[in-house]
Every structure is written in structure tokens, then in C-alpha cells.
């Protein structure tokens, strides 16, 4: 597939307030550079991320979706991300089964101290999606703002 050289992917990142969002913040404070492809949505916990959010993001034009939370065992609410892990292990396989490339949906554990990891995850994900090109699958649905 030929991809426009100027095209940059659009990634929606759901980051948990306590670890990954702080990790992203640390990446900024540490002046680490990473592609400006990610739009971060701060959620109280990665367990807050409903599978519907992920699919909805794809439907409304995301080329990739990242769900980032605390490392398992480190959840601010003790167990939230254990549920997230089960839910998205399943969801990842279902998306794959429906024909969505696995690189487009990723889950990563990023702690508040891992600014460098956040930058690296975004860089890597951007490269992978750049190679795949714009996401055309699942796109569409209602165009109204609702």
C-alpha cells in the first residue's frame, strides 16, 4: 500500500492517572522527544477503559489505540489493572479475529517512573502503524457529534 509520506498516524492513548499519565508527564519534564501522534485521555484507572471506548476510537478515526496502566500489582486501587489485563487479553484476540492488525491495539504497563518507556512505546507504536498506513477498518458509523 502506498502511503502519503507526510501522513502521521493518530493514536488515542488511555493513560491511567496514577502511573502512565505521570509517566507521560515525566517524559515531558525530562524533555524526551517522541512523535506527536498520541492524544492522551486521562482515566482514573486502566480498569475504567471500557472495550467500547477502544472500538469507538477506531470507528471515529483512530489509527491505533493504546491502553496504558500501572504494572500488575501496582494498581492504585489494588486490583483494577488485573481486570484490565483479563479484559484486554480477550479483546486483543477478538480484534485480531475480526481482522484488525494486532499492532493497532496495544496495552502497556508504564509506571510513573518510566518516562523513557512511555516515549519509547509511543515511538515504536507510531513506527509500526506508520508502516501499516491509515486504518480503514471499522471506520464510519454516525458522523454526527453525539
Amino acid at each position: 500500500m502506498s502511503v502519503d509520506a507526510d501522513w502521521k498516524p493518530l493514536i488515542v492513548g488511555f493513560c491511567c492517572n496514577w502511573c502512565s499519565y505521570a509517566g507521560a508527564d515525566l517524559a515531558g519534564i525530562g524533555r524526551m522527544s517522541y512523535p506527536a501522534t498520541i492524544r492522551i485521555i486521562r482515566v482514573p484507572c486502566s480498569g475504567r477503559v471500557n472495550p467500547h471506548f477502544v472500538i469507538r476510537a477506531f470507528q471515529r478515526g483512530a489509527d491505533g489505540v493504546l491502553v496504558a496502566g500501572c504494572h500488575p500489582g501496582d494498581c492504585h486501587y489494588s486490583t483494577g489493572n488485573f481486570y484490565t489485563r483479563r479484559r484486554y487479553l480477550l479483546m486483543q484476540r477478538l480484534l485480531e479475529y475480526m481482522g484488525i492488525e494486532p499492532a493497532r491495539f496495544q496495552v502497556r504497563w508504564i509506571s510513573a517512573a518510566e518516562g523513557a518507556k512511555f516515549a519509547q512505546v509511543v515511538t515504536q507504536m507510531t513506527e509500526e502503524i506508520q508502516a501499516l498506513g491509515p486504518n480503514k477498518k471499522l471506520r464510519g458509523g454516525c458522523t454526527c457529534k453525539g
Partner: protein
Amino acid sequence: MQRITDKMRKRAEELIAEGKAVRFLGWEKGSFWWQSPPVEIKEASQTGRLNWDLFCTANLAKYLQQMQSAEGKTGVFVKGCDARGINRLLRDGAIDRDKTYLVGIPCPGMIDPDKVRSLVGDGEVTITQTEEGLSLQGPLGSRKVALDEVALDKCLTCRHPEPVIYDELLEGAAREAFTGDPYEEARELEDLGSDERYDYWAKELSRCIRCYACRNVCPACNCIQCVFDMDRPNWLDGATNLSNNQVYQMIRFMHVAGRCIDCGECERACPMGIPLRKLAAKVDKDVNELFGPFEAGLDPEEKLPLGTFDPNDPDSFE
């Protein structure tokens, strides 16, 4: 069949007379040879309508949910899959065990009318049971077949033809429980490439008319208010297009993940013939592979795979 029908009628009549049930849910003979739709018997004199044959496919468990507000006990006839549906609803707190009286029927497996039509043609078909199997007579002639040749796909892979929960069990012979690999079809699809799989599902799901029959008939879809009926927030608008259909089916199967009992009702109710059991099988297969062996609907107290966790769950997320 006739013997079991007689027994059903007799037991329903007795139970209503004894006051153990105010009404009974069962099946009656429909207008066509391939129909045995559900029926609600409200008094002992109506029990003659009850019928048991190889078309009693409909899962009666879901109807109990509507009976919850009615007074008195509801009697229900349950096959293997209905019984697992009952467990499903009990586990979700959707029905009250004290308001139900369950009469189990060992299930021989049900017939897929399309398979019969492909053998003897569409039109007036007569099916008689013989000792060896079935004798079919239709516009294209007559055939002798074994039940398994025309049984529903879900019955061929049924692991619990005997009811797993009941108050009393009618005598009868159940089919042999399936012990092979129930996920064969899902595996075949998995072996394709991403784009091929996408095209496959795009072709199937573009036919979906979002009539929600699959949801309405599903014993795992028992929410009082479904996300797809909400307009604030508007999780998914009503337009029927491929994207919305894909979202609908994916989310529905995420919602019933680890709770689906594979009764195959979604696929049977689908007016567009979408192979929904292939989605159900995939999710069920992953639940089993990732979180350990699990079969939904066997125990009304079961721990649900997505409602619990294990700190040592597999982790491919780094």
C-alpha cells in the same frame, strides 16, 4: 417422542393441579413442520398443547425473566441448553430459583430444518422416527438418515445434552455428549491473514440488519437496560452500516464473554444467517486458553472469568 409428549402433558397437568406451578413453559406444534415454538400454558386444561419433537430448539430460559413479576411459580421444561441458560440467569440474579419449577428432559439433539430441506427439498416434509434413525419424506423424495446427519451444528458439539439443573427429570435418552474439539471452525478462521479475516466478517456482518434478535433471545444478555438501547450516552447509533454492525457484534460478544453457554440461539434467531457461533466460539476458546478451563452455565454460583482475576494470569502486554 410421543411418549415424552404424553409424559410432559401429564406432569404439567399434575403440577398445576398440585399447585407446584401456576403456569408452564414448554413447546407446542407450530404451523409448519419445522416449527415447535415456545408456549405458555396457563391452566391445566391447556396442557394438551404441549409437544415434544425434534424441533423444540428454542431456549425457554430467557422467557423466565419476563415471568419474574408474575405471581406464583413458573414451571419450565429444560433441555441441556435450557438448563445451562437457567444457571446463567440464576448466576446473574436475573431470576429467582424459588419462583421456578424445572422439569428436565434429556435431549437427543434437535434438527436443523435447512439440512432436511437440502436432502428432501423445501415444501411439505414429514419426518418419522424409526429405530435406526429418521425417515424423511419431501418433494424431492424420501431418505433414511441418522439424526446426526440433519442435527443442528450446536447439537453436534453439545457437551451437556442432559440438563444440569432440575427439580425432576423425565425419562428419556440423551444424545452422547461431545468430547472433541468445539473450536474447530474458529481455528480455521484464525489461520487466515488479517485482511482475509476482515473481509470474511465484513461480508457476513454487512448483512446484519441490527434487529437485535440475537440479543433478545440470548440468556446471557439479560441486562434490564442494554447499552444498545441507550441514547444518553449514545454508545452506538441506530444506523445499520458495516462499521456499526461490527461494533455491535464485537461489543455484544465482549459482554457475554465467559458467560455464553453456546446454546446457539443467536445464530438460530438471526434472520440473515450470520454465523454468530463462530464469534462465540472464538471468545470461549480464548477464555479457556487464557484463564484456564471454564464452561459457563454449569453452576449457578460459578465465578465468572471476567469478574475475577489471578495475579498469575498470562501477560503479553509487557
